[in-house]
């Protein structure tokens, strides 16, 4: 704890000394009377000065919350030696907004007193935060001495992105060998009818199709499509983002990533995660609630780091991208490196889908003839990138302010149905 005298101490001592000397010089007892309170205050303040000893502890109501929810923070102050005025400032990132007024707060702490201060914070944006650094400033009753100290009682707080509303998910083209919720092309144990075949020893009696058997005069059994899971990799483009004020393209991309991760894991698929950009991050595919928390925790560390280094998909370990996985890419299509990486994945045989998080609403409007021309060129270039994707067989759905994630996914599904129909 550092101690410093306030300007008030020097001012009062100076006024007292000046008043007393002037009274002596001019032989005016009135000046003694005017200077007396300043002298008395200074003398008492110096005599009664002492250093406060205050311990502080911070507790969070919850360690994990969703974006938009509120979290309670409790600060416990324990004074061995108190102070007349204690200012307590809880350091908060700008994403955590106090719901009530009062940061910093001023209280009085007597000796051996225990006081609790409660804060209610609204988590305005996702992220991983450390909340609990306190700045304490105390003043004695006379305002002559100021003591300052910092207490580091930080606790981790994870704010998860809110989920978007999605009705149906994209169905992966290929399934894997483990049991799941997708109807596979292969035949096996399941409930979806696939075919009929003659009975062979070893077949289960309950699979016998009695109607077909009666028609043919011999036993025929039903074959079903197996129900398998699939591998899904959420691909997040973190090379660049468009930002205007508090809005950016990264926030909806994160929310969509969390939503899709949770939904695919719920239907027993294996989900992996790759962030390709200035920061490279990946998680091997896995299942279950633990995988959901792993992926969401990894997403919280995502941030746009400007980098001119060439990064391609070779930087990602092979096991992160299992064969025949569905790669769902969330990208604003602002950086060519992400587009090239996705085309590379498609060329390697992955089933790639691109959800373009539209930056158009966040880009400042063009002014003048040159600005209009630049804007049109930029939009044409984006259209050309989409064309490259579509020629490579990658469906692209644009998700902006005027559409929802569910609509973007439905657009991809209808593109695939149309493509299948054309192939047929």
């Amino acid at each position: 704890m550092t101690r410093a005298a306030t300007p008030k101490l020097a001012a009062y001592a100076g006024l007292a000394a000046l008043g007393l000397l002037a009274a002596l010089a001019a032989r005016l007892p009135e000046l003694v009377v005017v200077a007396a309170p300043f002298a008395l205050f200074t003398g008492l303040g110096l005599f009664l000065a002492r250093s406060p000893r205050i311990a502080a502890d911070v507790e969070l109501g919850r360690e994990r919350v969703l974006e938009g929810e509120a979290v309670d923070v409790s600060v416990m102050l324990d004074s061995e030696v108190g102070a007349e005025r204690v200012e307590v400032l809880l350091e908060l990132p700008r994403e955590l907004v106090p719901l009530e007024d009062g940061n910093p707060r001023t209280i009085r702490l007597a000796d051996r007193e225990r006081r609790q201060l409660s804060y209610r914070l609204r988590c305005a944006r996702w992220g991983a935060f450390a909340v609990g650094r306190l700045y304490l400033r105390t003043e004695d009753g006379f305002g002559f001495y100021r003591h300052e100290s910092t207490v580091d009682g930080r606790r981790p707080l994870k704010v998860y992105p809110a989920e978007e509303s999605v009705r149906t998910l994209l169905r992966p083209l290929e399934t894997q060998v483990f049991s799941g919720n997708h109807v596979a092309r292969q035949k096996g144990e399941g409930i979806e009818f696939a075919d009929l075949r003659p009975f062979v020893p070893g077949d289960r009696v309950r699979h016998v199709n009695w109607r077909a058997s009666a028609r043919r005069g011999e036993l025929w059994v039903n074959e079903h499509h197996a129900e398998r899971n699939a591998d899904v990799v959420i691909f997040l483009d973190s090379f660049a983002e468009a930002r205007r004020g508090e809005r950016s393209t990264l926030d909806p991309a994160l929310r969509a990533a969390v939503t899709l991760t949770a939904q695919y894991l719920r239907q027993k698929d294996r989900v992996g995660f790759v962030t390709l950009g200035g920061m490279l991050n990946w998680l091997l595919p896995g299942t279950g609630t633990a995988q959901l928390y792993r992926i969401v925790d990894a997403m919280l560390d995502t941030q746009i780091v400007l980098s001119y280094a060439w990064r391609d998909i070779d930087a990602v370990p092979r096991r992160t991208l299992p064969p025949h996985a569905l790669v769902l890419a969330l990208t604003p299509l602002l950086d060519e490196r992400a587009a090239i990486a996705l085309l590379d994945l498609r060329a390697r045989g992955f089933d790639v889908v691109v959800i373009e998080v539209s930056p158009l609403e966040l880009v400042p409007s063009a002014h003048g003839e040159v600005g209009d021309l630049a804007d049109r060129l930029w939009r044409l270039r984006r259209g050309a990138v989409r064309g490259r994707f579509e020629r490579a067989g990658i469906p692209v759905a644009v998700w902006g302010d005027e559409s929802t994630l569910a609509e973007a996914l439905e657009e991809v599904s209808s593109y695939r149905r149309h493509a299948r129909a054309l192939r047929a």
Partner: protein
Amino acid sequence: MPEVVAGVGAAGCILVSLAVLLRQAPLLPLGFAGVGAAYAVHAALRTGGADSRAPFVAAAVFCAAELAFWSLAGSAGLALRRLALLVGSAVATAFVGSLLLTVAAESSGGVGLEAVGVAAAVALLVAVAWLAKPKPEL
């Protein structure tokens, strides 16, 4: 002469106002010294005994100084308690001032007493300068 008193007093008040508006603490003691100087000129020029209103002037100047430093501190917390303490201090100032005036009226002064007064004022300044040094670790 009333113009001189008013002028010096007004200058002091303007300095105090500027100090509060511009949040410049070093200007405050200069402003109050100006106000004190105006009162000193008034007291020196008046005839008769000691000014019986001096305790109330002292209380008013002291309250003004406290409020000025309070506004510069920027913290509005514990306002009621601080106001109560301020009112109590003002009353105590007036009381102590009255006692001092009474003692001053009855004492005969002398060189020795004056020397003690000067020494006390100087000692006060030296003690404050020493105690006001910042101490990093406590």
